[in-house]
């Protein structure tokens, strides 16, 4: 019999056991230990190959199952009548495992309820508190805050930033042509007295602008308007202006 084992599908040995119990349609209160142990072993054998981080936890459970199995396999002790007391005292070796499984199952189900709540909440959007600092007196930090409040504040800010980001990108993403950028690159170099560090020529954080800037730099190099050099490995590239003007008539991307 072969199994398709998705390693990530299980949150640990208890989860795996619940999965087996469900699949084999077993009564959780009357687990056939021998059967489930065999199935469990086959599963972890397949999983071990993949070097699970939690391998040791799966192995501990395997040992537990084997111990229970060996206990249940012991012949039922038909004691003398005086010993009847002890027989009643003897617990079903499966009891502890069963109660662990039941307890775990409760929270696993609770987790899926939380998942639903998470989905419902994810579609409600809020807004940032308005900036009231203009109306505010300077000294208002008299409250008890802990590091987690601060983290919370940071989270909110990041959540908000996520909403704002595409807007600012849209605004920033004006069409910048390579030709224009070549011109402003030369102007910028002039303002640096003809020599600048590579990074100083890329003042914008916007990727679209960066790409265009880069392409125009390459174009300027090709036309030998500028030269690029590096003093040593890993030091910053420096860009030098060689010509004050560049021919405009040539098509930037035309074949030479």
């Amino acid at each position, binding site marked *: 019999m072969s199994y398709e084992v998705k390693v990530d599908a299980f949150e640990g040995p208890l989860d795996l056991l619940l999965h087996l119990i469900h699949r084999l349609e077993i009564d959780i*209160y009357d687990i056939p230990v021998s059967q489930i142990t065999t199935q469990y072993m086959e599963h972890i054998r397949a999983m071990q190959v993949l070097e699970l981080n939690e391998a040791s936890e799966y192995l501990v459970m395997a040992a537990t199952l084997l111990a229970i199995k060996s206990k249940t396999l012991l012949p039922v002790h038909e004691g003398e009548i005086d010993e009847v007391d002890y027989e*009643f005292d003897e617990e079903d070796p499966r009891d502890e495992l069963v109660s662990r499984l039941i307890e775990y199952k409760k*929270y696993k189900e609770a987790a899926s*309820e939380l998942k639903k709540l998470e989905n419902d909440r994810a579609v409600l959007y*809020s807004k940032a508190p308005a900036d009231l600092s203009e109306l505010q007196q300077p000294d208002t930090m008299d409250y008890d805050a802990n590091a987690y409040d601060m983290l919370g504040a940071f989270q909110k800010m990041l959540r908000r930033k996520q909403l704002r980001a595409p807007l600012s990108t849209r605004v920033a993403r004006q069409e910048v042509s390579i030709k224009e950028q070549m011109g402003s690159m030369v102007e910028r170099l002039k303002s640096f007295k003809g020599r600048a560090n590579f990074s100083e020529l890329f003042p914008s954080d916007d990727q679209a602008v960066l790409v265009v800037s880069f392409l125009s730099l390459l174009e300027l190099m090709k036309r030998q308007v500028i030269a690029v050099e590096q003093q040593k490995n890993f030091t910053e590239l420096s860009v030098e202006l060689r010509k004050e003007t560049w021919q405009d008539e040539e098509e930037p991307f035309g074949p030479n």
Partner: protein
Amino acid sequence: MKKNLLGQIEALLFVTGDDGLSFSQLQFLTEAGAEQVEQALAELKSRYDGEAFGVTLKELAGVYQLVTKPEMAETIQKLVENPTPQSLSQASLEVLAIVAYKQPITRVELEDLRGVKSEKALATLAAKGLIQECGRAEGTGRAILYGTTDEFLNYFGLKNLEELPPLPEEMAQEPEEDTDLFMTKFQEAFKEEVNA
């Protein structure tokens, strides 16, 4: 009711955004009575139910907030950089469920329940502001106790912890109960026998 109490509350909730305001803060800021504020909140809520309204009133983590309606999500997601909402992993949800229902709880208790190490999940959840350390357990180890935060309530759209869905009932009575009852009866009978 005060003339424009509805407007005042709306303005206040608009300004405070995702910080929201508690009932008593609303009462204080609007200088209205509790009943009036309650009534105004109810009126606002039913007004927002109208189709031509894009926001609604929600009580989250003990504060009232304006949020957009669920049916606006698609439109708003066009504004968002990454339109698939972040969601927690199964491991995180499991840990969070246990912490939420069992708080305060130590890492060891949690790991016993789950049967796997959970350090990483705890760290992730703390980093997301969903759980926090909330004290130390009694005893020699003085282990850290974990509990949920207001952000947890907010994240799952809950007013307070009482709003958590009830834990699933245990599926059936434990079979041991019979045995225990039997044992009790047996021991009683036995005692009687001995004492007789």
